[in-house]
Each structure stands twice: as C-alpha cells, then as structure tokens.
C-alpha cells in the first residue's frame, strides 16, 4: 500500500496466463480478484435465471408471485409518496426558513435513521394493539368494549408503509437539504432580479435544481423498502423477501428461492440505474462554487407554529415515541437484560460487528488505493462491482452465499468420505465465516464510500510535495496519509459496525446454530409476542445506532463552505468540504 506515483506500475508477467490477463498490474489484479469474490453471491443468484424452472418455481409463479409483485410495488409506491411528502418540505423549512427550534430540528430530523424499521414496527404494534396503552385508554375514556369501536389495524400493508416511511424519510431529507445548501445564492438572486418573488424563485429555481438530489434520496429509501424483511415478516405481508424466506425454509427449495431473489434483484437494478442517473444529473446541476450564507425567510405567528409542527411530528412519531416506549418496557423488564446471558449476547454482537467492520475497512482501503495507484477503466469497474452489495437486499445476499458454500461443503465432504472415509462436515456454511462474508459483501460500499472520500482529500500533489521534500514512499504513507485519514477510518469503522449491528435477514439465514445477535433476539422475541422482553435488545441497537447519526450531523455542519469559518477568506475547494456520505443500508432491513 505504498503510494509511489513515480515508480512505473508494478507489472507481473506470468507466462502461462492469457496475454491480456498477464498485462494487468498488481493493483488491477488485486482489485479484479476482490470484485469477483465479492460479486459471487449476486452472480450465483443471476445464474439461477438461466436454470430450468422447477416444479416449486412453477407453483410459485401460478400462486403467489403475482401477490409478491403487487404487494412489493404497492409498498414502494406508498413509501415513495410518504418519504417525499415528509422529506422535501421539512428539508426546505430547515434550510430556507427561520423559526423557533430550527437549529435543533436540523439534526433531530435525522434521528429516525437510528431506528430500524422492524423495531419501530413491533413497538407500534405493542402500543396500538388491543391490550396496548392507546386502545386501553380509549376504552377507559369511552366505556366501550371489544369490537364496539373502530380502530385501524397496524399490522397491514398500510401500516408497513407508514412504519417504513417514518424511518426512511431521512434519506430524502438529508440529500434534499444538502442540495438546497449547496445551491449558490446567486442563482436565487438572479431569479429575483428577473422578476420572480421568493416563493416563485423556490418553485422555479431551487426545487428544480434540487430534483436530482430528491430522486437520489428517494431511490435509497426505495432500496431499503425492497430490502426490508423484518417489518413485512412481522406484519405478515407476503412480499419478495418474506417469499424468499418461505421458499427457502418452508418449501426447502434453494433454486426456487434463488429465482425469486433474481426477480427481486431486477427490481433493485432498476433503482440502481435511477440513482446513478440522478447523481450524474446532480453534478451537472451544481451551479457555482461561490457560497454565501443563505438569507432565511423568518416565519412568524401561525406560520412558525405550522413549521414547528411539521418538523416535530416526524421526529416524534419516527423516534421519540417509539424510543420512549422501548425505554419504558426495558425499565419494566430489568431482569431480562441485567444478566450474564444478555451480556454474552451484547458481546457476541459487538465482536461480530467489530470484525466485520475491520475487514470491510481493510478491503475498502486496498480497493481505494488500487484506484488511486492504477486508476482507469478496469480498476474503476472492479471497485464499482465490489461496492454493488449496498443495493442488494440482505436476504438475496444470504441465499447467494449459502448456495455456493453449501455446494462446496457437500462436495468436499463426499469426496473426503469416498477417498478417506472422513466426514469434513460443514466448513463454510453455517459458520461465522459465511456470516462475515455476507456482511462484507453487503456493507463494503459503506466503508468504501467513506474511505474514498477521505483519500480524495489527499490530493496526488500532496504525495508529490512530500516526495520533493525528501520523503520516501513509506514515509509519505505514515507522515501524510495516515494522519489525514485517521478520522475517516474511524468513521468508516463505526458506520459498518452499526450497520452490522442492525442487520437482520442475512443474520437469520446464515448465523451458526445457537448463535444470536441483538437484532435476531429482538426479532424473535417480538415474533413470539414477547414485546416487552425484546425491548432491551432493541434499545441497545437504537442507542448504538445514534452514534453515526450524531457523526453525520457533525459532518454536514462542517461540509457547508462558508457556514462557520468566516474568519479567514477560504479557498473555494479547500480542505474540509467533505462529501456527505449517506450510509446506505442503514436500516438493516
């Protein structure tokens, strides 16, 4: 990993390899190999598209496939509308208007990011079902009994839409707000001089400029929706992810499960293309590099009240109320978490998450340096492919890991038994290795995005400067790169750590026998209607999940040029302006 721009690229010539392969440099070979290994699960799933349809698949297609498609599409539609309706207006309010509490809402609106969808789903179920506090209060106040009043059923498709919307709107909020802040005041002022009023300017200039960012946020939210397993499974809604589980465990047909996963993947790829396209447009829409503070419209009277209400409601429903409920439950069930078992559970989870984070960040470093040393088409594509997992639902990755690993184990086992009469048993599948591999596939993009952003701050000319000042490559690495990258690496570790902590479906499928994580424990207890007992594990996840949210809000605060540093004249694109890395896969599905 030595940065040595001057040296000719290390070319390894291996005679028996085909010419084109032999001409790849060391960095390129490393990048391509890593990309191929990490793409294995997705490739396995795709390969199943070409397998002949088995009986189970034909059965699925005739009976439930239509329902899966319909429900998944309805869910996407509902969540899509929901996150736009919440995300865009609040982003506009906090970035363009001034009202009481705006500075607090600015970061508080991100809090629901810490709340995994499955946790909020069963928390609300516990609150809103017949025996829950809300219905009990209604009965106490009105004197009505069971069945004598109407109450909405939370465990429904609409309920799932609401739950997912409440925790996914921050994606739209974050990206839209960043877009508003990046817009140069000049374009808004130009529009004023051309005769548009402030509101007119917003709708004719600011909003169209922010549109690519809105779409990017929307696609991220929709990817999470497609990936969600916990919520729909708990609410009993047949969608792709629950269908894959059912086919895998209920029908015990891996091929059919993989074919189902392939259909889900095709949905995901449409979203990926949409996201790429919108991000590309976002670059074109970046109008100017000169920034100044946005003059805010001061809201007064009922307008200010309405703005506060609009910002408070999502925070209340998406974080404060469920977090309060979880805390109450956890306080009531202290004997369930103040014991060695729970400590063991926490240790298991943190241990697993820490290893996954270290591995993911190490691989991200290798890939990022490969791109820096040997940029170009091959490395670029390899890095892209390696980072593709962020869009792939955990369920799909788990199936894609399980099938080849199980094949390897079975083949090896039968070979060894034939030859030596020894049974090797399960070497890969059902081990922590399989689980870690799935985590790295899924979350490498999170670390990669962060590490690349950090490495991007070290311009190639800084390497050259260090060299011209008498520093050898290794010295450049330790005295220039490492100090600059330290914060970035910690951030990347934290983001992956928290994502692994929250991950549910892949953990459910791949965990070794009798191995539990906080997420699995919370989900299983909730599934057994032991909501109060599950609260401690859930609360632990939420609390740790708050860390990246805090980190993110600090990053954004710093990323706005001219926002805080007004003392010295700043250079247009100088050091601190970090790209805001929105952690993909934050919901853990």
């Amino acid at each position, binding site marked *: 990993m030595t940065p040595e*721009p001057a040296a000719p690229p290390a070319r390894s010539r291996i005679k028996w390899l085909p010419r084109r392969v032999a001409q790849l440099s060391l960095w390129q070979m490393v990048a391509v190999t890593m990309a191929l290994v990490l793409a294995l699960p997705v490739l396995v799933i795709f390969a199943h598209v070409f397998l002949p349809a088995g009986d189970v698949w034909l059965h699925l297609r005739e009976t439930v496939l239509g329902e899966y498609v319909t429900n998944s599409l309805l869910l996407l539609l509902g969540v899509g509308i929901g996150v736009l309706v919440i995300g865009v207006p609040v982003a506009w309010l906090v970035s363009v208007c001034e009202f009481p509490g705006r500075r607090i809402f600015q970061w508080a609106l991100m809090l629901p990011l810490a709340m995994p969808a499955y946790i909020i789903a069963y928390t609300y179920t516990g609150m809103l079902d017949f025996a829950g506090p809300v219905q009990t209060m209604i009965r106490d106040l009105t004197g009505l009994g069971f069945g004598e009043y109407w109450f909405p059923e939370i465990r429904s498709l609409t309920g799932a839409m609401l739950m997912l919307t409440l925790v996914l709107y921050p994606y739209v909020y974050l990206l839209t707000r960043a877009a508003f802040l990046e817009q140069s005041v000049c374009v808004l002022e130009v529009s004023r001089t051309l005769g548009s009023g402030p509101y007119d300017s917003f709708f004719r200039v600011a909003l169209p400029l922010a549109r690519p960012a809105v779409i990017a946020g929307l696609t991220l939210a929709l990817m999470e929706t497609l990936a969600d397993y916990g919520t729909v499974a708990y609410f009993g809604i047949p969608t792709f992810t629950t269908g894959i589980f059912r086919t895998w465990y209920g029908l015990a047909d891996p091929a059919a499960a993989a074919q189902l996963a392939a259909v889900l993947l095709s949905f995901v790829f449409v979203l990926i293309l949409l996201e790429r396209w919108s991000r590309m447009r976002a670059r074109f829409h970046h109008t100017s590099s000169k920034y100044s503070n946005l003059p805010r419209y001061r809201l007064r009277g009922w307008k200010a009240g309405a703005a506060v209400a609009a910002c408070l409601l999502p925070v209340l429903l998406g974080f404060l109320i469920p977090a309060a409920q979880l805390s109450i439950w956890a306080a009531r069930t202290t004997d369930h978490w103040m014991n060695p078992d729970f400590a063991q559970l926490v240790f298991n989870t943190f241990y697993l998450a820490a290893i996954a984070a270290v591995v993911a960040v190490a691989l991200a470093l290798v890939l990022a340096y490969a791109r820096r040393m040997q940029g170009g088409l091959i490395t670029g594509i390899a890095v892209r492919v390696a980072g593709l997992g962020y869009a792939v639902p955990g369920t799909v990755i788990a199936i894609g890991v399980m099938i080849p690993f199980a094949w390897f184990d079975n083949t090896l086992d039968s070979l060894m038994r034939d030859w030596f009469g020894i049974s090797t048993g399960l070497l890969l599948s059902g081990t922590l290795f399989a689980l870690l591999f799935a985590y790295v596939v899924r979350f490498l993009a999170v670390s990669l995005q962060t590490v690349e952003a950090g490495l991007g701050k070290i311009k190639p000319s800084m390497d050259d400067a260090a*060299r011209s000042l008498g520093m050898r490559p290794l010295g450049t690495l330790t005295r*220039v790169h490492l100090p600059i990258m330290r914060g970035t690496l910690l951030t990347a570790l934290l983001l992956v750590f928290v994502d692994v902590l929250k991950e549910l479906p892949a953990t459910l499928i791949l965990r070794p026998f009798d191995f539990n994580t906080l997420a699995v424990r919370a989900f299983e207890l909730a599934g057994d209607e032991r909501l109060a007992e599950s609260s401690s594990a859930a609360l632990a996840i939420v609390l740790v999940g708050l860390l990246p949210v805090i980190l993110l809000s600090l990053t954004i605060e710093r990323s706005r040029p001219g926002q805080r540093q007004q003392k010295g004249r700043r*250079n247009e694109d*100088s050091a601190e302006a970090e790209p805001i890395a929105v952690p993909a896969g934050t919901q853990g599905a």
Partner: protein
Amino acid sequence: MTITNRNPAAAAEVVLDDVDVGYSGQRVVHAISLELPRGQIGCLLGPSGCGKTTLLRAIAGFEGVMRGEIRLNGESVSRPGFTLPPERRSVGMVFQDFALFPHLDVAGNIAFGVRGWSRGDRDRRVRELLRLIGLSGYERAYPHALSGGQQQRIALARALAPKPELLLLDEPFSNMDIELRTDIAHEVRAILRAEGTTGILVTHDQNEAFAFADCIAVLNNGRLSQWDTAYHLYHRPADRFVADFVGEGTIIPGKVCENNCVETALGKIRGPLSDRFGPGTAVDVLVRPDDIALDNDRGDIKAEVLSKAFRGADFLYTLRLQDGTEILCVAPSHDNFVVSDHVRLRLNFSHLVVFPRGDSGPARR
C-alpha cells in the same frame, strides 16, 4: 543571453539534453534541449496541453525520460532506465493547488522537509522564511484558515525550507486574482533571488513569464519552439507559433521584391532578410501593433478604423487597409479616432520578421 550569476554556491545548473517524456508509451514531449545556468530563472511557456507540466515533472523526478538525459549540476539524474527519485534530487516544488498538508499548521508545513535538522535550526529556518514571505506570526495557523495568496506563499516557503538547489513552480499563480499575479510573480522572483536558487516556472500566461523569468522556453505541442529572452521572443520569434503566441500582432502576406525588402499591402518594408528569401519568394510578414504609427500628417498609407480598445495609456486599433487586409496598431490615447474614421499610417519597423508562406498556425490572435 548574458545574465549575471548572483549566487553560484547553492544553485544548480540544469541541462536537458534531447529529452523525450511520455506516459504509457505515448510521447508527450519531444527532443527538448536547453541549458539553464546557475541562479537563473527559467520559464516553460505554452498553451495548455503543450507538455510543459510533463517536462517539469520529469525535471522533478516524478516521471522518467524515454530518451535523452537530464543533468543537475553535471550529475545525470534522468536517463532511460534510470530515474533518481524526487526525494534525492534537492529539488523543491510549488504545486498549482499548493498541496499544503491540511493536518499540519504553517510551521509544521514549512518544517516538513527539514525534520532532520536540530530543533533550534528548524525553528530559526521557519521564522526566517516567514519573515521573507511577510507572514511572521502565522506559525500556528492552519492552511484552511488562510487566503489563497497566503497559502501560495506558505507553499513557496515550504519548498524553499530545505534550501533546494532548484525550485520548480507549476502554474503557482493560476489560482490567484489576475491583478495580483504579476505583482506576486515579481515578489517570488525577489525571494528566489534572495535565496539564490535556480528556478523554473511553468505557465501559460506570457505576462507572468515576462515578469518572472530570465529566459523563456516556448513549447508547442510537445516540442521546443524557442529558448530565449522575453525581448527576443517578442521581436525575433523563431517561428509563426511563437510570433502568434507571444504578444499581439498580425501576419500579412507579402513578396520579396529585392534583397532586404518585402512588398505588402502596407507598401515596401525594408529590413535585413535571410538569404533563403530570394527575390520573388512569397512570404508572410509579422506586423506588431507598434510597427505601425498612426500619423494623419505624414502618413501615406490609408486605412479605416474597424474597432478600437481603450487600454489606458494607449488605444489598440483594428484597421482595414484599402485592399481589405486587417492589421493592429497601437496609438497614444490622446488621439481619439472613432470607428469608421479614415486615418493615415506610417511604417515604424525596427526589425523585419518574415516566415515562408504557408507555414502552419493561425494568422492572428
């Protein structure tokens, strides 16, 4: 070129001998040969993409050479198959984006290259350089809190700290306000003189080159067009490219009528001509705006004012001769002609610059 050698002790002599540089088999710079004496300041001038930065990086040791040799103080530092790494060349470099280390304060940045020195020497050197660049008291400031001009000077101080024998500057002024560029170029030149370092600047801005350099290499498409003083580049351009790139002017067609005389739309222009332009040869003549004088009393060439640009002390007129040829002309701003006025011109050539007809290159810029 005769320029006095002020400080031979700490400065390097730079020799490029028939150098080719390129990336991945593609040659970017071809057959460059030039010599920069100790303590002098040279400049690589040319449009973007001409290979000037590539050549500078080869001198620094960031790129190897594909042919020829680079010698610093007589020592071969680059030849095919051998490139002395940059950290062992005693070459300082100032980068276009300054490349200050964001994690170090000003003192840390400047002292980066002298960490082998004793603490006292280091601190003294930092203080000395900060005084030289006029930023005393900024030791503890971080780069992001400084203005572009301040960052630029810190980058210069950092490069000078280890007392390099040669300082390379890669378009160091291009990020600055235009009004400041020439001033800062003068300032940096004075600092280099004070440090007695040989310097090479890369730029696409001829005013910067004129303000900074003793000797200028004009590069065109990877090849050296001319290696000369600013005065000679302007008045004795080696080819049409240099004539076109350096200074203003027009190139008009003409025909050699007798020895040392060319017949053009401006009439007969006299001046020493090379032997290869025998009578009857079709040629192109470089007409600088100051080769023509506006003189309604004594002038005998008629022209019409097409447009004019006020430049303070003078006007730059675009004129159309009777046969339609357009030329540029500088005139003091107290005579104020207006567009479509008819004026008279007088020839005021001090040198005659002639190129064979049909050379490549645009006729004017």
